């Protein structure tokens, strides 16, 4: 699986992906990889602000979140502290100004921007790019 469990080599290459989309409503500029590297998730309306959904992206479970200011984020859905595929079911909020999701199992907080656990910066989950195309949320390859 592409999420990491704290082993340093794996985390570095997956956290550098910015997942922000400050203006989801207008259609994004065409992506060079469009049509091949993006997976349709759901209509944007289906995403309740500050709540996640889980999508299947290339066989991997990916949690997709929409914050109150309409930014979109995607993290691998597996919580590395419990190895359960549950992050999409966590509560979304902010800690110290960083948008986070709290794992519903043991309540560690993961930055939506970087995937890093606030309680242990060695633990990082993979992040994915997100965009909205014609009102449909899409997740790219992490």
């Amino acid at each position, binding site marked *: 699986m592409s999420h990491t469990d704290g082993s340093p080599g794996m985390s570095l290459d997956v956290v550098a992906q910015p997942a922000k989309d400050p203006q989801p409503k207008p259609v994004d500029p065409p992506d060079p990889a469009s049509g091949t590297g993006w997976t349709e998730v759901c209509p944007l309306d*289906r995403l309740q602000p500050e709540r996640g*959904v*889980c999508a*299947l992206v290339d066989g991997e479970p990916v949690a997709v979140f929409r914050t109150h200011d309409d930014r979109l984020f995607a993290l691998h859905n597996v919580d590395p502290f419990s190895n*359960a*595929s549950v992050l999409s079911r966590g*509560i979304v*909020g902010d800690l*110290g100004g960083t948008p986070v999701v709290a794992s*519903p199992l043991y309540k560690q907080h993961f930055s939506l921007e970087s995937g890093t656990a606030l309680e242990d910066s060695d633990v990082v989950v993979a992040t994915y790019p997100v965009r909205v195309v014609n009102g449909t949320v899409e997740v790219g390859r992490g």
Partner: protein
Amino acid sequence: MKTVVVVGHGMVGHRFVEGLRRRDTGDAWRVVVLAQENRPAYDRVALSSYVGDASAEDLTLDGHDPLVELHLDEPVVGIDLAGRTVRTGKGRDVAYDELVLATGSVPFVPPVPGRDQDGVFVYRTLDDLDGLRAAAEEATAHAGAGRRAGVVVGGGLLGLEAANALRQLGLSPHVVEMAPRLMPVQVDEGGGALLARLVSELGLRVHTGVSTSSIARDHRGGLTVTLSDGTELDASVVVFSAGIRPADALAREVGLEVGERGGVLVDERCRTYAEHVWAIGEVAAVKGRTYGLVAPGYAMAEVVAERLTGGEGRFTEADLSTKLKLLGVDVASFGDAHATTPGALEVTLNDPVAGTYSKLVVSDDAQTLLGGVLVGDASDYETLRGFLGATLPGDPMSLIAPSSGEAVGFEALPDGAQICSCNAVTKGALVEAISSGEATTVPQLKACTRAGTTCGSCVPTLAKVLTSCGVEVSKALCEHFVQSRAELYEIVMVTGLTTFSAIVEQYGTGRGCDVCKPAVASMLATLAGGHVLDGESAALQDTNDHFLANLQRNGTYSVVPRLPGGEVTGEGLIAIGSVAKDFGLYTKITGGQRIDMFGARVEQLPAIWKRLVDAGFESGHAYGKSLRTVKSCVGTDWCRYGVQDSVGLAVALELRYRGLRSPHKLKSGVSGCARECAEARSKDFGIIATETGWNLYLGGNGGFTPRHAELIASDLDTTTLVRTIDRFLMFYVRTADRLQRTAPWIESLEGGIDHLRDVIMSDSLGICASLDEQMARHVAGYADEWAAVLDDPDKLERFTSFVNAPGVPDPTIEFVDHLGRRVPAGMKDGQPTDLAALGLGGVPITDGARIPMGAPA
């Protein structure tokens, strides 16, 4: 083994037994307690609460120990010093190695003509109070028009307590005090004047500077009390509380030396002049002086307990500080309150508008605090008392001036300052307990130092000690709200806001987190109602509430249908069984008399619940911080011993409170008789049937720190019982901290369970109508959450494995058979693998493998 005989089982005698048993780790002593009263030791300090709603049982001090024999109603009538035996009122002789006299005192009744009539009482024991209560009930029953009066002779501490008791019994109290002011021992003239004014405003009539000349029966059967200034008072009852005298008759008979003003003479070790005989408490005169407060008595009890176990305790100086709330008025007095030290200066602040009076007595150089008096507001008492004998941190006036705020820094207190005078706990001892890591919370501090466990007045100071040691006791809910949960609840209640966004924008910062969001969701559920998945609320819910099921460690959920009172029919069992079988769920009976089904995938939950709802079941709220179950025994339906219908009540209560969101989970139980098979006392609210009604116990729990619930009221009829529980639950919902169970919540209330009883049974805060209304709204507004989800396609949409591939099950979820049980694949850290060695199951877990179930070979 040696025998110590204790004569008297009052608070001090009881404290001695406790102190000895605590120290006597080698079980060297057998303890025989011979008590005059027909009930074990009780908290005499709380006597006036007995006329309120406390029962005798509430006041009874704990203790059960095989090495302690307690003989009630068996006073000692003679002592044979040479033969080391005592003779009891039942004619028994009991031999002793050591004898401890703790006979206390008897009320002093001045020789007023007419004092022997019916209707004249003293104020000392529970029996006295029972008599007083009967007389008051008789008087109020036949009163006709108008309130009947009662006269209290004596305006000291006990006299005002007695006046409060009369007031609670429905009589109008007069207080007659010979001295020119109330509480002459504790307060000065200025304080006394304010005290008289404040209690007069509460309906007491105060007569100072006069004595009682006679008591006579009038022609209507009432009493006429004539005062020395000629005033005549009509009264139904008269209570003498004009002081106490040591109960030293027994000691005098055998020739033990007594003090000039009575009391068995003892030295600093509390030894009398006879070998192997000790005296403690109000009966003892330490170097000639007697003490009528509980704290010095406790100190003497500890001295003797220490001496008998090889220690070197001494009773040196007594702390005569007093702080109490009389009729709601704070009064405190400490140290040299009357400025008798030569050269002492008095600094006084009298604010008749605010109704406060403060006086500090300082040394002639104004550097050292010698004593003080506080009336109307005694909130600085603990801190000020800590400075007794120490150098003051500033100008004395600044310490009592209202603008000073926190001018009296707790940090400035010397280590020797006594914080808990009942148990002689110093600031140093508390700091030690905190810095050693033994205590980081107020309850822990109480447990390991005993501070705050007797009268409780220093409990607020304990929080200050923690703060001064750097232990954060912030009440802020989280980084988004500086308010405590209770404060936020008030805000939501008063403003009527119904969304988290509006609340956090107006009263918080940021966007919230997994702490404040579910807390606010819970408040909105009780205040605004509606479904937990309606609108924005859905985003606030913890995963359990969001999916109305309990998340387990592999991301699957467990399902618990409600079985009110633990009842289930054969058809119901079959329906549950077929669901478990068809969905492959692991099934287990819970401690709350329900059935829990494990291993449901999120996308299976609606189908499972469709079957359950069709079979007549509803959500059991096992996932919520809400009412879980009301456990019951079979009661009068089947049991030979049951005295009430415990199942009927349990079902009714469970249906009444189902779905109520609260700061933490709530559990209940109903037992049909005193055998208590439903374990009601381990519940947040437990009910035990009596021959005539129900006893209600509040604040119990199992779990990490098991607690027995405490009795709040006895023999209630069902209507009163339910009303009391309604108010208890709603008051808890309003004021508890997040994730605070009812036991620590009650403990955190200033005044504890007594305060709770005042609030919910006597409406002391005037909020009962609002609590009742809120509960009525909850009961009327209840709807099954799961049925509502099944009827709403928008809500059902959430229950999917993948939003873009709904038919694909989550591939990370796998199950294996482990010793015949269906469990999540993948070992949990620390999961034992050697249970198979017990021969109880099949084969140890092998991750991912499928192992056929079968009987052990």
